[in-house]
C-alpha cells in the first residue's frame, strides 16, 4: 500500500469525519463487510451491558441449575459443574473477552504506531535500534513470553480485588502483557507507510516552513497513516481476543471474572470433552470463532477498500 492510494489530508476534524463515513458506506456495500459488522455489533451490545440480557453473573452461590446438565427447560445451553446457566456465563464472558481485547488493542496499537512512526520518520540509528527490538518480538514466540510474564507481574503487583474499567487487576495484568508483546507487526506496517510518506513533497514543504519533527509527525504523518492504523486495529483486536483466550485456557484467567477462554479452561479441567459435555465448551467456542471470523472479514474488507490496487487484475 503506497501513499499515493491515500488522499493527503490536512488535519481537519471535519475532513477526517467525512472520510470515515465514506469508508463505512463502502463497507456496507460488501457482503463480507456487512456480515462482519453485524456479528460484531451483536457481540458488542452483549459486551457493553450483559446484565441487561441475562442479569448479574451467576456464582457458585447464586447458581440454581442442575449440575453439568445438557440443555433442558430454562437452561437452553445447559449448565456447568457449579450449576451455573451457560447462557449467563457466555454472555458475561463476552464482556470480559471483548473488554480485555479492546484494552489490549489500545495499548498494542499505541505502542506499535508510536514506534512505527518515530522509527520510520527519524530513521538512522534510532530506526535501526527500534527495528532490532521489533524484529526480536516478531521472531520469538511471544505467547510463551506472556506466559512467563503474567504470573511474575501478578505476584509483583499483588492480588487485590481492585478493578479498572470494571475489570479485575488480575486480568488487567493480562491486558498489559498482551499489549507489550503484540505491537511488533503493527510497528512494522506503520513504519513502512511512514517511510513512503516521508518522501512526499508535503513533508518537505512543512520542513521548509520550519516545522519541527514532532509537529510533522503528529500533524502530517499521523493523519495519513490513520487509515492504515484503523485497518490494522481490527486485525489486532482479533489477535488480542485469541491471545487472551489462549492465556486463559492455560490457566491464567480469572475464575471470578470468566472470559470465554476461562470457561473453556474450566470445561477442560472438568473433563468436558471426555465426558461428552459439549454444551460446556460449544457456546464460548462458537462465540470466539464468530467474533474472530467477523473481525477477519471486516479487516479484509477494510484492506480491500483502503488498498484498491490489490483487487485489480489485468
Amino acid at each position, binding site marked *: 500500500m503506497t501513499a499515493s492510494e491515500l488522499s493527503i489530508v490536512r488535519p481537519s476534524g471535519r475532513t477526517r469525519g467525512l472520510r470515515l463515513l465514506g469508508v463505512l458506506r463502502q463497507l456496507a456495500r460488501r457482503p463480507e463487510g456487512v456480515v462482519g459488522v453485524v456479528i460484531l455489533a451483536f457481540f458488542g451490545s452483549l459486551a457493553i451491558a450483559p446484565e441487561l440480557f441475562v442479569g448479574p453473573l451467576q456464582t457458585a452461590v447464586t447458581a440454581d441449575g442442575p449440575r453439568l446438565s445438557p440443555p433442558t427447560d430454562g437452561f437452553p445451553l445447559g449448565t456447568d459443574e457449579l450449576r451455573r446457566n451457560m447462557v449467563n456465563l457466555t454472555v458475561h464472558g463476552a464482556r470480559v473477552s471483548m473488554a480485555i481485547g479492546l484494552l489490549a488493542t489500545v495499548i498494542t496499537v499505541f505502542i506499535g504506531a508510536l514506534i512505527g512512526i518515530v522509527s520510520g520518520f527519524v530513521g538512522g540509528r534510532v530506526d535501526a535500534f527500534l527495528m*532490532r527490538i521489533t*524484529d*526480536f518480538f*516478531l*521472531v*520469538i*514466540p*511471544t*505467547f*510463551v*513470553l506472556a*506466559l*512467563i*510474564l503474567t*504470573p*511474575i507481574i501478578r*505476584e*509483583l503487583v499483588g492480588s487485590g480485588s481492585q478493578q479498572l474499567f470494571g475489570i479485575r487487576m488480575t486480568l488487567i495484568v493480562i491486558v498489559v502483557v498482551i499489549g507489550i508483546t503484540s505491537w511488533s507487526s503493527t510497528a512494522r506496517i506503520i513504519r513502512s507507510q511512514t517511510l513512503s510518506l516521508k518522501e512526499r513533497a508535503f513533508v518537505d514543504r512543512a520542513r521548509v516552513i520550519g516545522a519541527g519533527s514532532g509537529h510533522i509527525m503528529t500533524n502530517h504523518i499521523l493523519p495519513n497513516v490513520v487509515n492504515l492504523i484503523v485497518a490494522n486495529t481490527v486485525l489486532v483486536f*482479533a489477535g488480542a481476543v*485469541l*491471545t487472551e*483466550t*489462549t492465556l486463559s*485456557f*492455560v*490457566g*491464567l484467567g480469572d475464575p471470578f471474572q470468566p472470559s470465554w477462554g476461562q470457561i*473453556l479452561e474450566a*470445561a*477442560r479441567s472438568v473433563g*468436558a*470433552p*471426555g*465426558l*461428552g459435555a*459439549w454444551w460446556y*465448551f460449544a457456546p464460548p*467456542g462458537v462465540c*470466539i*470463532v*464468530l467474533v*474472530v*471470523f467477523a473481525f*477477519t472479514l471486516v479487516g479484509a474488507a477494510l484492506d480491500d477498500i483502503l488498498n484498491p490496487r490489490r483487487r485489480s*487484475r*489485468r
Partner: protein
Amino acid sequence: MGSSFLARRLATAGITILLIVVVNFILFRAMPGSPERVILRGTPNVTQERLEAARERWGLNDPVFPDQFVAFLGATATGDLGFSFVARGQTVSAVLAQRIWPTVILFGLGEVVAIVLGLALGAYSGWRRGGPVDYVGNGVSLVLYSTPYFLLGMVLLLVFATGLGWFPTFGMLTAGATYASFTDRIVDFLAHLALPLATVSLGLVGQYAIVMRSSIIETLSDDYITTARGMGLRDGRILRHHALPNAMLPTVTLIAINLGYVVAGAITVEVVFNWPGLGTLAVEALTARDYPVLQGVFLLLSVSVVLANLLADLVYGVLDPRVRT
C-alpha cells in the same frame, strides 16, 4: 549462495538468541523472592551453608552487571539452567530433556503434514480457480483460521474419541499398559498421536492453503507463464516447473512468520490431549510456579523458533536467487 547472505543471517540469529538469554536473565532477577531461594527451592535440606554456597556459585554476591550476567550466560551456554522447584533435585535440563521428544514428534509431523496438504490443496484451488473445491476450501480455511487450536482439539476429542470411540482421549500411551510386542507399542502410540496430530495439522492447513492459493493465482498472471504456454508446454509442466517454484516463496515466508504463533497453539493442543510434551510441562510449571522450568521452556522454545526461522530463511535463499546477491 553468497557468503555474506549466510553470514548476515547467522549473525542476526546469533544476536536474537543473545537477546533471548538477556530477557531470561532479567526475568531471573525480576522473579519474586530472592534468587537463591528460587534456585534452591526444589532441593531438600537447605541449610545456611548451602544457601551461602549457592550464592557464591551463582555469583549473587557479585555485581549484577557484568559479572552476574556473564556467569548466567556461561551457565546457560553449558546447559546449566538451574533446578526445578517441583521435580525435587532434578535439573531443569533433565526435566526438559524428558519432555522434548513428544513435542518434536507432534509438532514436527504436524507441520510436515500441514505443509504437504496445504500446498497441494492451495495449488489445486488456485489452478482451478472458482471451482466448487475452491469455494468450499476457502470457506473452510477461513473458519479454521478463526478457531483456536485447542478448541479444534476439544471438538475432535469429543467427536472421535468420546463420541465414536475411535481414539483414546488422552496421553501418549495407555497408562499402565504392557505390550506384547514393539509393534503393539507403536500402534498404541500412533492411536494416541492421531487426534492431536490432526488438530495441529488442521489448524495450519487452512492458512497454508489460502496463502498458496493466492500465491498461485498471482503467479499465473505473470508473463513467464504466458511464455511457457506459448512454448506449447503441457499444463502440468507449467504448474510444476514454472508456477510452483515461484508461488512457494510467499508460503515459505508465511511458514517462518507463523512459527511463533504455532508454538502457542501446540502448547494448548498438548494440554487438551494431555500429551506429555513441553506444552503440558509449561502449563504444569505455570500452575506450580516452577519458574526455573518455565524459563527453561521459554529459552528452549524461543531458540528453536529462531533456528527454525533461520532455516526457513536459508531455504528461501535457495528457492529465490534474487535475494542471494
